[in-house]
């Protein structure tokens, strides 16, 4: 634990202060976007003036995001343990898991507001934001245990459950904490998004909506920083716990034994096919059940069949297909570009953090702000700086995609055992050579997992940019359809965006399987 004195002298603090000072100067001189970026002092002054407004809104946001965080994570950890104990169950749930992960929040929020009431849309959106991250972290943690420790337990007569209890759960704790750390800001963002759209009186999202019309960027930044503060505190709590736990569980040496292979490789073909079909059908069954249970009339809540009918059978289906097709032609090319940009950015950051740790520590607060600052608050700044073309779309996409990928890549780099790192060092290799020859190849499974995280989120980034700035593609079609009271199109855009994200995910997974199998490495779930 660093002492107080060393913190005050740390380069991280110095960098942060330099950054804040630069921000203040830029804001005072109105250097960015004709003053659309307010100086730090103006934000703080506004925050002080608005101090009476914040407690009610912050409390509402904390309440619904905490509820969503708890529900989502409880389900996620339970599901993770079950999936590791019963791999076939995981195969069956794969479609649901990936669909939950790939759900673009802005496409789902209107649907939740249509079908649920009160704070339910907020809680559900927060829970959806945390489920996949924590579930994945749990499965990764439970799968990547040191087989030598398990062998010891088995040699003394322990069974699967004892291995789970003594080796796997214990070894998984750092991963689960890492998951919770990323999940926490997701819960806050999900709740705020639902507050923004869903009607109601309290919550930072509602406050943001009411404040937009003031044309006062200092207020909007204040709300964003409040959201960041809430998310940052929850992140910090889990980061602190995980820093304390990590040291005691990392292997001291590298395990050279190959991990056990796919346990289901010898299963009968019929069973494999049945599981695959079940996995594909389950999300649709759950969707159908959700509509039936919510009791919302057919006209506004479409079942999977309702969407098929709207898109292929109804009298207006040709018009609907033409609209959807035109929107897709606008959205898909830029999404491909956004994927590359987001992943490239995350990779560069992760590499830099090994080469220049001080720089990254100073960058982390900014990175967290980009994750919790509602983009709608930044729209004027973004369009004034970047216009309404490709560059604004790419920057929004990068900001939406890079963070989870970055955290995962860092994890991969950090898990390389010390003894392996000592070898190139002993031979006098440069830091870059060490990275190239040891750390990056060793972290390859994490690089692929990061790609899988990034790729579907790119679609979300592009849709947000379309909604806020460019007025094209799927993001715009979704919003226009609300004005046309075109419920069929709202559900169609939501389901098509999920299906697309799932397709992107599988594309990466196929490449990943081939590459890692060739290299004798294990896929990170």
């Amino acid at each position: 634990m660093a002492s107080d004195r060393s913190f005050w002298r740390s380069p991280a603090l110095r960098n942060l202060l330099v950054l804040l000072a630069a921000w203040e100067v830029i804001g005072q001189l109105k250097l960015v976007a004709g003053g659309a970026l307010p100086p730090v002092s103006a934000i703080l002054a506004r925050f002080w003036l608005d101090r009476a407004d914040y407690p009610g809104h912050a409390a509402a946001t904390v309440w619904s995001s905490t509820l969503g965080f708890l529900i989502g994570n409880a389900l996620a950890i339970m599901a993770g343990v079950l999936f590791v104990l019963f791999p076939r169950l995981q195969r069956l749930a794969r479609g649901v898991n990936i669909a939950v992960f790939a759900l673009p929040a802005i496409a789902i929020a209107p649907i939740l507001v249509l079908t649920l009431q009160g704070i339910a849309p907020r809680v559900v959106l927060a829970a959806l934001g945390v489920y996949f991250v924590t579930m994945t972290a749990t499965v990764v943690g439970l799968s990547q245990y040191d087989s030598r420790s398990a062998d010891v337990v088995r040699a003394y007569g322990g069974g699967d459950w004892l291995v789970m209890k003594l080796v796997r759960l214990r070894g998984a704790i750092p991963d689960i904490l890492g998951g919770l750390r990323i999940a926490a800001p997701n819960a806050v963002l999900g709740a705020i998004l639902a507050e923004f759209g869903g009607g109601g009186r309290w919550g930072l999202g509602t406050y943001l909506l009411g404040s937009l019309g003031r044309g006062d960027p200092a207020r909007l930044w204040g709300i964003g920083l409040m959201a960041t503060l809430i998310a940052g505190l929850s992140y910090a709590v889990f980061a602190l716990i995980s820093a304390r736990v990590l040291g005691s569980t990392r292997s001291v040496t590298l395990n050279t034994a190959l991990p056990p292979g796919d346990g289901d490789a010898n299963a009968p073909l019929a069973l494999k096919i049945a599981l695959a079909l079940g996995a594909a059908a389950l999300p649709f069954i759950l969707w159908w059940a959700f509509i039936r249970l919510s009791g919302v009339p057919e006209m506004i809540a479409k079942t999977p069949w309702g969407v098929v009918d709207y898109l292929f059978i109804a009298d207006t289906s040709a018009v609907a297909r033409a609209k959807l097709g035109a929107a897709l032609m606008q959205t898909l090319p830029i999404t491909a570009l956004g994927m590359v940009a987001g992943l490239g950015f995350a990779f560069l950051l992760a590499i830099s953090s090994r080469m220049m740790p001080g720089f990254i520590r100073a960058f982390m607060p900014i990175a967290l702000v980009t994750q919790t600052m509602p983009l709608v608050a930044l729209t004027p700044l973004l369009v004034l700086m970047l216009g309404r073309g490709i560059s604004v779309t790419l920057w929004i996409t990068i900001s939406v995609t890079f963070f989870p990928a970055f955290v995962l890549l860092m994890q991969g780099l950090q898990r390389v055992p010390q003894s392996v790192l000592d070898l190139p060092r002993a031979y006098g290799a440069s830091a870059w050579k060490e990275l190239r020859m040891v750390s990056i190849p060793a972290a390859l499974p994490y690089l692929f997992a990061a790609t899988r995280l990034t790729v579907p989120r790119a679609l979300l980034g592009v849709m947000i940019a379309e909604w806020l700035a460019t007025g094209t593609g799927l993001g715009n079609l979704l919003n226009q359809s609300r004005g046309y009271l075109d419920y069929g199109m709202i559900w169609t855009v939501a389901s098509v965006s999920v299906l697309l994200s799932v397709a992107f995910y599988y594309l990466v997974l196929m490449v990943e399987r081939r590459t890692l199998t060739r290299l004798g490495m294990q896929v990170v779930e």
Partner: protein
Amino acid sequence: MALTIGRRGFLQTAALAGAALTLPRMARAATPFTMQAAWINDAEFSGYFLGMDKGYYAGEGLELTYLPGGPDVIPESSIIAGRADLTLTTPDTTIRAISEQGAKFKIIGTQYQKNPIGVVSLKKNPINAPADLVGKTIAVPPVNIVTIEALLALNGIDKAQVNIVPYAYDPTPLVKGEIDASLDFTTNVPFTIGQLGEEAHSFLLYDHGVTLYNDTVVVTEETLATKRKELVSWLRASRKAWAENLADPALYPPQWESTWFAGTGRSIENEVFFNTAQKPLIDTPDGIFSMSEEDIEKNIKALAAVGITGTRDMFDTTLLAEI
């Protein structure tokens, strides 16, 4: 009608039976009644806040629940799903839903005789009429795209000649000159523009052929049949409250600073400006909420320009007559 009873029907019957049993004891208890507003709490809904505060709804035997709106809240959805008895919305969405999707809605009144939506620009770069929009950039909330299409169609302007971008309710891009105009409530955003040191310039779409109401009062046919008395009571209380609010538009908004307007993020001066500016758009000699035959005809005609087929029977003026 089939002799089956749906789940909701059964629950309603059960609730009615229950109510009938307890009726003697609580004969004077108010009937629960829910209204869905079109947006978050601001001066647009002053009349209802006043009516609730002064007990005008309670005086009519209604226990009113007020639901604020938001960007993702489609007002019509609340009445379809049975979450509200009545909603404030726009005639274009309602009539499109009736004519194209067979929705069973009736428009029973209108808050705004003239839609407050207009084209807002800066005085130093004014847009005076729809023709001035050619070659310019206008920001439009995606949900209002129908409205701008109507304006362009009715004034013979090709949509391709105007650059339409999304509007995120923040006037900063307009003030900074990134866009030339925005489609917004002329009763509201000019205040902010003035605060930001610019002078706003605007015209109402209503004055350029888009002769539409706004915040039309819409109910389902089922509610109209089963709660007619409550609907008339709501109209009567709301009319009384609105008249009182508009008598001095600067009087009430400051009183709601710590109640209805608490934490909305908007300023009271803005609400007073809004309340004052909307007065001529709501007031009518026939009584607030009324719909004249001539105006209904105008609405139908304007909607026809964008291919929305409205008919007279989508409007029901008989409840207004009962007030």
